[in-house]
Each structure stands twice: as structure tokens, then as C-alpha cells.
């Protein structure tokens, strides 16, 4: 099964750029990436730019409404994701626990649906 690991965290409590904690976090991400690649489970993964760059869109009565900002105004934002292909939820949770941002944020684990619009 494919799972998306969605990384939610509060930028205010993230380690600041240039600090030893930041270095440690980046090392943790590097180690997680390498581990997922070595185990052959990693399908894709990206980090997202900050919410100040986000634009939200919805269609109301046939009219496109565009808004500045993220979908929900909360402290914790979606900061990036991984897509992994593993046999079950226990294995997905094992990889989710390797993501460093789980120490200061939340990793949501969601199975992907069984179709791929990209073909």
C-alpha cells in the first residue's frame, strides 16, 4: 500500500536556521531519506515553501475565488510530505517515526487511494 506521510508543524517552534538543532534536524531528514531509499520504499517526497507563499482557490457557483494564504489558519502547517510504498500501517508508522519533525510537530499517516491520475 502507498501511504502519504504529511508533516505538520508550527514554524515558531521549528529549530532556527544556523543553530546546532537545525543541523541535527537536517541530518535527521537526510538519514530518513537515505533509509527509505535504501529500503526501496520511497516513492516521492518534497518540502513546501512557507505559508506566506500559499494561495488557496475554490469554485463557488461557477466562479473561481482566489485567496491569499493557506487552507486553514492554524498554528501547525503542512510543511512537506513523503509517499512511501510499504505492506501495512505498522511499517508506515515505523518510517513516520524516523522523520525528525515528529519531535516538534505531527506526522499524519494516510493511505493513498487506488488510482493515480498521473497514469
Amino acid at each position: 500500500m502507498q501511504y502519504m506521510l504529511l508533516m505538520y508543524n508550527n514554524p515558531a517552534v521549528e529549530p532556527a536556521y544556523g543553530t546546532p538543532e537545525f543541523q541535527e534536524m537536517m541530518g535527521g531528514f537526510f538519514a530518513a531519506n537515505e533509509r527509505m531509499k535504501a529500503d526501496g520504499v520511497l516513492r516521492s517526497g518534497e518540502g513546501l515553501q512557507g505559508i506566506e507563499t500559499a494561495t488557496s482557490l475554490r469554485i463557488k457557483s461557477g466562479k473561481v475565488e482566489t485567496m491569499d494564504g493557506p487552507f486553514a489558519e492554524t498554528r501547525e502547517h503542512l510543511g512537506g510530505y513523503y509517499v512511501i510504498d510499504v505492506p501495512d500501517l505498522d511499517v508506515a508508522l515505523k518510517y513516520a517515526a524516523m522523520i525528525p519533525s515528529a519531535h516538534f510537530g505531527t506526522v499524519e499517516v494516510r493511505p493513498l487511494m487506488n488510482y493515480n491520475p498521473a497514469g
Partner: protein
Amino acid sequence: MGAAASGSAARAIPVARELDRVMRSDQGRLLAALTAGLRDISLAEEALQEAAISALSHWGRTGLPASPQGWLLQVARRKAIDRLRGITRDTRKAEALTRLVADEAAPEPEAIPDERLRLIFACCHPALEMKSRVALTLRTVCGLDTAEIARAFLDAEPTMGQRLSRAKAKIAGAGIPFAVPNAEIWPARLDAVLTSVYLIFTTGYVAGPSEPRDLCREAEYLVRLIDKLHPNDSEIEGALAMMLLTVARRAARIGLDGASLPPAEQDRSLWDCDRIAEGRAILARAMQRRGPGPFQIKAAIADCQMANPQPDWPQIAALYYALWHFEPTPVVTLNAAVAMAEAGQPARALAIVEGLAADLSDYQPWHAARAALLLMTGNRTEAVYAYQKAIILAPGPPERIFLERRLARIAV
């Protein structure tokens, strides 16, 4: 015609009785065996239900099969295949179908593999809400129906039905494995299982044995089953010992006036000696394995509560401190302080209890414990207020009557 009709009716009664007996004793096992192939509890339940309905008419005509369990399993598998053939566009269902067809080719199973441990770990997966874990385990492994589970947890039946459906859908949809976890995650996952069974136990203990399905017995059945399927595990044995040593005192828990009684004030002749002896033997065996854990510690505390002529309070206090290393919660600290007071240090215990106010001021036992400690340290006025607060928050008449009697003693 009349003779034929009465003949089949006469046969229908023992058939129904036998089916009822088989379903009562083996439903969990059959459901687990079916789920092992289907990876879908709802589908397994529906297929088994259909097989049971078929059994009534088939067995009535042809007599009982050599292995009623094997018959039910095989027919349920065929029913599941029929259902799956309609929806094979889903790849996972197609995989299940392939597995099933392979299973079906096997000869009629006399010895059905026992897959209940896998079912228990799936039902008690930490990705499910605690209440759902408990409800689902009672439904699938113990065979309680939705109405019985709803009653035990004071829920409306439709609410409980929705909870069960959501939990089964999450197991299938989220890919919760139908497997006994590996060594890496075993301790955490076993704890999730035993904590769920413990919640079944405490719910039954509070409700009392008058309910049609005694949840204490169901919990004991479950933990004995887990012990049988995964023997020689110190924490499983600890959980079993803890339940036996606690339920042994159940008949003495409430006095003639309806007040709940602490172990020291209970009529020991009402204690179940067989359960105490078995609990102690299991606990001793568990502790020899040198793998300490919270359930063994709780079992040892239950044992020390029954020391003769009075509870071994210094030992109980030490055990609560040991428990705190596994469960660093305010409630454990509170219990440690109460034991410390009984062991002769009420002033120190009171200071600890006062320090828990921010965490536990909504927790009734905190008020009751604080009242007792205020009284032990000679502060009668404050003790009266604390008892009054504890009485207002009392969860039921036994606790209320107990506290009212304590309060009456001060007032005299």
C-alpha cells in the same frame, strides 16, 4: 405431511441448539480464521452470519456434519467469494479472492488454525480509539452483540453500531495489519492490547456481575486466551495475575450497608481463595522471568492489599514508585502518597497530594484521599470540606455511602 413437518421441526430444535453452542464457543476462532484470509472483519462477519443461517436449514435436512466448525468455515468462505466476485475491480479485494480460492481448495478443516492472536492485535491497534478497541475486541473475539456492548458502556445501540463500523472500516482502509507484531514493536503493542483488556475488566468490575454479560469474566477469558496463544510472557502473566487477585475480592467489595470497603475492612471469608492462590502462583512465575512491567507491579500491589492482618503499606508505596517509572502519571503519584500515609508518613503524603491539585482537582479519588490525609494530620475542619466535595463527585452509591460514614465519624 403433518408427520413430516413435525419430524423436521423436532430435528430443528437440536440443530438450532447445536448451532448456538458452536457459535458461542467458536465464533471468535471462526471469525479470526476467516479474517486471516479476507483481511476485512465486516466481510468475515457477514459471511459467517450467512453460513450460520445456511447451517440451520442444511443441518436440519442432512443432520449435523462431522465438524460443524469446519462446515461453517468452508461455507462462510464460499459466501465471501460470492460477495467478492461482484466487486473485483478493487485490486485488494481481488487479492483476497485469490487467497480465499487457495484456502477453499484445502480439504474440510478439522483443525482450524487459531488466528485469534492476530485478530486481537488488529482490534487493539493503537491507531484505533481506546473505546473502539475495547468494543471491537468484545464483538469479534468474545462474540458479544452490539446491544450488549452498548449497554456495558452506557451508549445508545446505534451509536455503538456506528463506532464498530468505523473501526472495522479503518482497519481495512488504513492497512492495519492482521498480524502478531515483531519484536521491535512488541512491548508497545502488547501494552495496547493489555490496556484494552484491562479497561474491559475495570468496566465490568464497577458494573458488578449482575449484567447479562459479565465483563470481568470476558476480560479474564481474553487474557487467558492471550496467555495460551503466547505463553511465557511476564507481562501477560502479570495482567492475568492482577485480574485474578482483584476479582477474588469482588464479593467482599461492598458491605451490608451498601458502602464500598477498602480491602483492609472487607470480610475475608468472602474472598475467592482459589483465584487468590492461582493469581499468586502466576505472579510468582512471571516475576521469575525478570522482565518487570506495569501489570506485574499492579498484580503485586493487589496481592499486598490482601496481606494478613493488614495491607503491607510500605511495600505498596514502594511498588507505586516502581510503577511510576513505567507510568509517570498524577494518579500513580496520588496512589503512592496514599500508601505512604498509611505506612506512617501522612504529613509528607499530604504535601505531595496538595501538589497534585492542578492536575487532579476534577478527579474524585483525589478529594477522597485528601480528606483522609487531612484527617490523619489533625485538620478536621478542612477534612470535612474535602469529604463533602468528594461526596458530591462520588461516581456511585457505594463510594458515596463509604464517604458519608467517614464524614459522620468526624462530626461526632
